[in-house]
């Protein structure tokens, strides 16, 4: 055997959890997917099947790859055999911290636990773990099987061995890890969330409409999507949550969610997933 055999556990069967499970299964790595919600567990195998097809359609997987097995469960005990664990539950610091404590209690020492948080500092979550040295960040983008680069966050207490094991799995999955240090929002979201917030303030102040803001970023700067279309894709509720995490941890008022963002979330205009955010997607599924 030339490569270490990996077994991945994914905690949380939401959009990202299912996407991460799909990536691993597509590369032949068996996955245990854990969620406390019975509906999500019931839907997970079908979603993974659909996303495997999507990944193949878009050329995100090798055609000759043998798919790994999927086990769906509500029991954390099932993760004990995993070589790497990815935590991908809802972005609530207190929920994530509680889960960190519970999962590291059932894992053998040296099994890395990767949090897929978009902005909570790794060391804050590591503080809740039985062994802080096994905790690091892996900021998968959506969908994980189509985006090769991944922001990997090494906390101040993360052990080299845990980082190496995590990088070994990501390499096995043909990802391209970029290792960065710890801090609220890490690199991507420290910049991106603020950009979305500022773009939203520009609209709020009547300086430009959403189409004009995004046209400048795509047309002049060559961005694939403008900041407001990006916010619509992420989900404006998630944007507000991330901004709040950043504001609470930095005290920097630039991260205070704009009134327009808060109003849109209150109105239920959360972006693509509801058909309307800064842009209108109803009927036009482009």
């Amino acid at each position, binding site marked *: 055997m030339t490569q270490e055999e990996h077994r991945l556990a994914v905690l949380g069967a939401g959009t990202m959890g299912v996407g991460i499970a799909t990536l691993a299964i597509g590369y032949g790595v068996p996955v245990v997917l854990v969620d406390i919600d019975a509906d999500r567990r019931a839907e997970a195998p079908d979603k993974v099947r659909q996303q495997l*097809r*999507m990944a193949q*359609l*878009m*050329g995100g997987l090798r*055609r000759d790859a043998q798919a790994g097995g999927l086990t769906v469960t509500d029991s954390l005990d099932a993760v004990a055999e995993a070589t790497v664990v990815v935590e991908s539950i809802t972005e609530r610091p207190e929920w994530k911290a509680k889960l960190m404590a519970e999962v590291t209690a059932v894992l053998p020492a040296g099994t890395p636990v990767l949090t897929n948080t978009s902005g909570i500092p790794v060391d804050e979550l590591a503080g809740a773990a039985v062994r802080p040295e096994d905790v690091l960040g892996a900021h998968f983008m959506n969908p994980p099987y189509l985006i090769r680069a991944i922001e990997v966050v090494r906390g101040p207490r993360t052990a080299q061995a845990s980082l190496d094991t995590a990088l070994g799995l990501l390499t096995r999955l043909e990802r391209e890890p970029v290792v960065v240090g710890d801090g609220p929002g890490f690199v991507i979201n420290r910049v991106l969330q603020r950009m979305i917030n500022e773009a939203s303030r520009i609209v709020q102040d009547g300086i430009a409409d959403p189409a004009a803001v995004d046209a400048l970023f795509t047309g002049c700067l060559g961005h694939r999507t403008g900041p407001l279309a990006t916010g619509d894709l992420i989900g404006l509720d998630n944007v507000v949550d991330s901004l709040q995490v950043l504001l609470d941890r930095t005290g920097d008022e630039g991260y205070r969610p704009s009134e327009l963002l808060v109003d849109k979330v209150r109105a239920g205009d959360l972006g693509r997933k509801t058909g309307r955010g800064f842009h209108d997607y109803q009927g*036009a*599924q*482009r």
Partner: protein
Amino acid sequence: MTTSTGDRTTEAVQRELMGFLSEHTRTTWAPDTDLFAQGGVSSLFAMQLLVHIESTYGISITGDDLNLDNFRTVQRMTALVERLRGEGSDG
């Protein structure tokens, strides 16, 4: 030339696919226009197209056929439908 496999002609498949596309993208597409070229439809929409084609024509798209190139134009999608329907009726 119009060929027929089963109960729908090539032209009918092409017309139906163009109707689906214009309904869902609010744009009219020529049969040979690359849908995924700059300014076209998103990659996520490709999956919707695939599911629509499978359910409408009772075919299953798998293996090497799961390739975006098969969905680039209405013509290519029509050819895929014709081929898979043909394979289905042969077997």
